[in-house]
């Protein structure tokens, strides 16, 4: 059996989906995390600890491991582990992205530079030090603008400012969020428009679009908390093609070659704009709404591609589907969630997963970014994306989060 090295950060939502997919395809699985499993000594072939903060060091560690347990493929599941996977793939000459490409995809500033140089439409942006006087910076920038951390995910710390006063306030919040973990941030132009998310798979540099999601809730700030994704997109076909071409040009500009891609794009009267592109699959538990061919999961598809196994189909099932990242209901300690059964009873709702646990402190955006749960909907024959969206909203209305 081929051996798969799966890089799972200990904080990922995707453990079960990837582990079960690996079992289904019959791969010999080694799970590597940045923190050791307590059972690592009992299964040295199946559990490994790698330094995710230092990808090249992790690659050396993986190479040592591979001398005893040869590795046939390596897969990362989030921004950081995608970089580690690239480093391991380069060192062991496995299918994957060049390390420089994965690093560029993770670093929002580097990504902007490369995409702008390749004439991919991106928001204008400038890199600033956090210790620069915000009053001075506020005089220089063009409004509206967006302050953005270089590496945080899930829109954490992303704040729109429409005036110098709002800029200074946003700068103070961002400085607090980034204290001790980064010294720089981006200020970029706010691009108005309708936002979509593209899920794709790169096969030998060619982008295969797996799904295009509409984001029906406007993302105009001041914070950018994601809520609903619905597919198939209702964007006109010609524009969908332009969006896919924009994402493929961005992938090539970054130097990405193989594996999953998740891109956020906006479009307006000037066409599509690449807001962000990541060399990883869709986040959270959102992939649960995607099925390909006869029910193959996104994770199975990614693992099959990495291992060079046959992929039955890259075509998503012909039904409307959607997911809601449940908005953070407020600040406080979660005591109880009411209405889950009623929420699940809404027609078209497939599942409601509450991922926050009782006693957990919920922190709203922009300081927080952990959604308290997910709602999944899938249409049957004839159900439209609009009906799926309505079901998600109806199911959400039936939930009550009790906070203290």
């Amino acid at each position, binding site marked *: 059996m081929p051996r798969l090295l799966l890089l799972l950060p200990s*904080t990922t939502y995707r453990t079960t989906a990837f582990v079960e997919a690996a079992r289904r395809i019959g791969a010999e699985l080694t799970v590597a*995390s940045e923190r050791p499993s*307590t059972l690592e000594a009992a299964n040295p072939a199946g559990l490994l600890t790698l330094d995710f903060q230092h990808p090249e060091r992790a690659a050396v560690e993986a190479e040592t491991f591979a001398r005893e347990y040869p590795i046939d493929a390596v897969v990362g599941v989030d921004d950081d582990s995608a970089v580690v996977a690239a480093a391991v793939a380069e060192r062991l000459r496995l299918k994957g992205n060049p390390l420089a490409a994965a690093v560029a995809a993770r670093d929002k500033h580097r990504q902007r530079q490369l995409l702008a140089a390749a004439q991919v439409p991106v928001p204008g942006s400038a890199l600033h030090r956090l210790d620069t006087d915000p009053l001075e910076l506020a005089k220089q920038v063009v409004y509206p603008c967006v302050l953005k951390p270089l590496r945080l995910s899930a829109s954490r710390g992303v704040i729109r400012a429409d005036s110098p006063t709002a800029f200074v306030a946003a700068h103070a919040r961002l400085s607090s969020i980034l204290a001790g973990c980064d010294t720089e941030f981006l200020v970029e132009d706010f691009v108005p428009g309708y936002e979509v998310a593209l899920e794709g798979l790169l096969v030998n540099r060619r982008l295969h679009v797996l799904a295009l999601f509409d984001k029906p809730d406007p993302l105009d700030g001041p914070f950018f908390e994601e809520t609903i994704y619905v597919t198939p997109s209702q964007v006109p076909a010609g524009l969908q093609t332009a969006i896919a071409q924009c994402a493929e040009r961005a992938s090539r500009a970054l130097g990405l070659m193989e594996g999953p891609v998740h891109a956020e794009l906006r479009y307006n009267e000037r066409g599509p704009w690449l807001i962000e592109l990541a060399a990883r699959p869709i986040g959270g538990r959102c992939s649960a709404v995607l099925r390909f061919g006869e029910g193959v999961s996104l994770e199975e598809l990614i693992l099959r591609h990495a291992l060079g196994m046959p992929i039955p189909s890259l075509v998503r099932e012909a039904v409307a589907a959607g997911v809601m990242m449940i908005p953070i209901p407020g600040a406080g300690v979660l005591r109880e969630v009411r209405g*889950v059964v009623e929420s699940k009873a809404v027609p078209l709702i497939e599942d409601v997963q*509450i*991922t926050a*646990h009782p006693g957990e402190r919920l922190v709203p955006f922009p300081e927080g970014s952990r959604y308290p749960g997910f709602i999944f909907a899938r249409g049957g024959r004839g159900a439209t994306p609009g009906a799926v969206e309505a079901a998600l909203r109806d199911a959400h209305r039936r939930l009550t989060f009790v906070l203290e």
Partner: protein
Amino acid sequence: MDQELRITAEPVDNHRCKFVVSQPLHAAGVRRFASAAEAKGSPLAEAIFAIPAGGVTEVIVSGNIVTVVKDNPAPWQMVGKAVGVAIRAAAASGAPPVATKTAPPAGAPATVDDDALYERVARLFDEQVNPMVARHGGRVELIDVQDAVVMLRMGGGCQGCGMADVTLRQGIEGMLSQHIPEVRGIVDITDHTSGANPYFQASKK
């Protein structure tokens, strides 16, 4: 009683789903059914195996948790609702949803000795697994062994932990296959949504 019954489905993937019910269905340990024939005499399991086009291959009932395994890759949307109907009907009937396991008749051909396996698995859990997972505040409880399939429940830091599936599949399952190769499978009947103190908590996109 039927109106008060609450059922929460927790799909593990498209093949396996746990249904957490607000009242116990089978207080006397665990029952596992690997076929419709085995389910005869247990109305809940019979009804679940009889779901049209459900493709159900296994039903495990323990306390207030019903775990259903099916062999088709369709999402749980349709089958899950039918399982919910079966659970409600079984709970409302007043009869025991699941029959208590009976000992094999004397003289029956020897198959797997679950009792002996139970002892060995329990020893492995006590001596090796639990001292290890205790370092993360976790514990693993052996619930039962039926037909050489181990049923366990995770607690403490393991309950609701983002890496629980890694602990289960890469750790415990590997140890079982190494030390007790007669074990044919492992079923986690934990209600992970109720975990109040998971060691690793999912938070990143």
